[in-house]
């Protein structure tokens, strides 16, 4: 890993996560011969984050296995990386990025791939020892050490990170409570039927939930957390609290440079900002998404990779709008949850598979159109669903019904007359 910084580059990529690295790699695959400079604020090689909340904490995935590309490969493909230094300012008029260490780098094109950060706990007790968040490798190392010593774990927020961590903690024999403001788990991301299933399974694994809960404060008399106080009087015992209450786009640097920011850096379908020399991709951008029927910000590996490819193709002279099918996964204990498409606003749902055996999928429809498929331990269904959603005309409810909700037939584009 290096701190190599060119004074001037054809493409500067701010952020060395999954999106930024993909943009750099795809530029080379597209035959782009100009200089590429990546700048990342973590002092490590680009790495994958998903295992941090799962295999890494269980000791099944090593730090080395997280690294996406070794330094030798970056060198070989002539991708320069300045790692461990933050960018502080974008000077758009001069097309120059300024870094915290006083250096700067000029660009012909700037790709902002600064990602997102965890929303921190602003209420009482956020500063106590034993209160953690999880986003970076450094976070995961710290959390691993805390978990080792912990007996009572409280997770604030029943989203993906919170539940993945709760499953790990329960598996390691900890007493685990999950506190959630909504009335179900993963409420913003999955349908109620999936929420209900995961709640059941986590409860069987020993996790206890408090739904509709308001946290009064994280408490600890001597600088170290001892509990989480809820409105209504209950205090849950805790020597480790993981706060998993969502992410915030790292968009300040763009806003300060006069670019539009609205829950992420605003880009068009080509992932370009209002400044033709500046693009934004991955977690940090707010983009028009055909599957959302509007603008959205997505925090996912799929979005990072596919947007990295789209921006690289455009810079290399092959512009194409972003229209990749959204897909996600979350491994919680022995359950693999996968989603294809976006199920927001669904009005009909069909189950296939065997719920009791924890192997099933739910096909969601809105206004008679197939819009998404959620799968539990049915990875083949997820792959077929992604193919179905990528079809020029995804099946209607009637067509899906006529095909017996057979995803394989639907993926092949076979349409039976209803």
């Amino acid at each position: 890993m290096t701190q190599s910084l060119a004074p001037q580059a054809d493409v500067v990529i701010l952020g060395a996560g999954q999106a930024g690295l993909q943009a750099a790699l795809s530029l080379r695959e597209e035959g782009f011969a100009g200089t590429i400079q990546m700048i990342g604020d973590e002092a490590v090689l680009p790495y994958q984050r998903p295992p941090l909340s799962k295999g890494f904490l269980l000791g099944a995935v090593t730090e080395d296995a997280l690294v996406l590309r070794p330094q030798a490969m970056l060198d070989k493909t002539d991708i320069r990386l300045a790692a461990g230094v933050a960018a502080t300012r974008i000077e758009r008029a001069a097309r120059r990025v300024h870094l915290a260490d006083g250096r700067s780098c000029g660009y012909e094109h700037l790709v902002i791939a600064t990602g997102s950060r965890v929303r921190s706990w602003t209420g009482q007790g956020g500063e106590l020892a034993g209160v953690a968040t999880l986003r970076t490798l450094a976070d995961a190392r710290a959390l691993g050490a805390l978990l080792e010593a912990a007996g009572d774990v409280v997770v604030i927020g029943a989203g993906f990170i919170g539940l993945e961590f709760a499953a790990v903690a329960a598996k390691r024999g900890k007493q685990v409570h999950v506190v959630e403001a909504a009335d179900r788990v993963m409420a913003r991301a999955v349908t109620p039927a999936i929420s209900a299933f995961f709640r059941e399974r986590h409860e069987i694994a020993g996790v206890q939930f408090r739904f509709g809960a308001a946290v009064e404060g994280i408490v600890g008399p001597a600088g170290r957390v001892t509990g989480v106080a809820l409105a209504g009087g209950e205090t849950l015992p805790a020597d480790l609290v993981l706060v998993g209450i969502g992410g915030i786009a790292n968009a300040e640097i763009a806003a300060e440079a006069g670019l539009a920011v609205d829950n992420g850096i605003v880009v068009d379908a080509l992932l370009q900002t209002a400044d033709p020399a500046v693009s934004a991709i991955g977690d940090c951008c707010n983009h028009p998404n055909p599957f959302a029927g509007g603008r959205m910000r997505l925090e996912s590996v799929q979005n990072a990779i596919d947007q990295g490819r789209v921006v690289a193709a455009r810079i290399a002279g092959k512009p194409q709008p972003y229209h990749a099918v959204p897909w996600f996964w979350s491994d919680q204990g022995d359950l693999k949850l996968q989603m294809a498409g976006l199920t927001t606003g669904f009005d009909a749902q069909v189950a296939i598979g065997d719920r009791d055996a924890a192997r099933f999928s739910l096909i969601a429809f809105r206004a008679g159109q197939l819009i998404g498929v959620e799968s539990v331990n049915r990875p083949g269904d997820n792959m077929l669903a992604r193919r179905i959603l990528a079809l020029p005309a995804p099946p209607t409810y009637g067509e899906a019904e006529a095909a017996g909700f057979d995803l394989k037939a639907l993926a092949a584009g076979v349409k039976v007359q209803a």
Partner: protein
Amino acid sequence: MPRVTFLDPRGRPATIDAAAGVSLMLAAVRAQVPGVLGECGGSLACATCHVYVDPAFAAGLPPVSPAEDEMLDATASERRATSRLSCQIVLTDALDGLVVTVPDAQI
């Protein structure tokens, strides 16, 4: 240090020296073997690391799990008897000389 040869869909070889203990997918991705994507990082969530393994090495491979089997049924390129997801093959010295073919498409 097992050596692995990747044949592209037209049969042109690229040989890499991999470390024992890492998956075939990770070794290929880090060496930037064209056509092996590994988008999910080995979480059995994407099937973009599909390869065809030379039958001579079949006996030395770990068995296909039910999840891998299901995913191989839905790969972008046709499934053959020799199809595997390379993230599920951990390289060992016993696999030195392994030869695999990369399919036409992963997505």
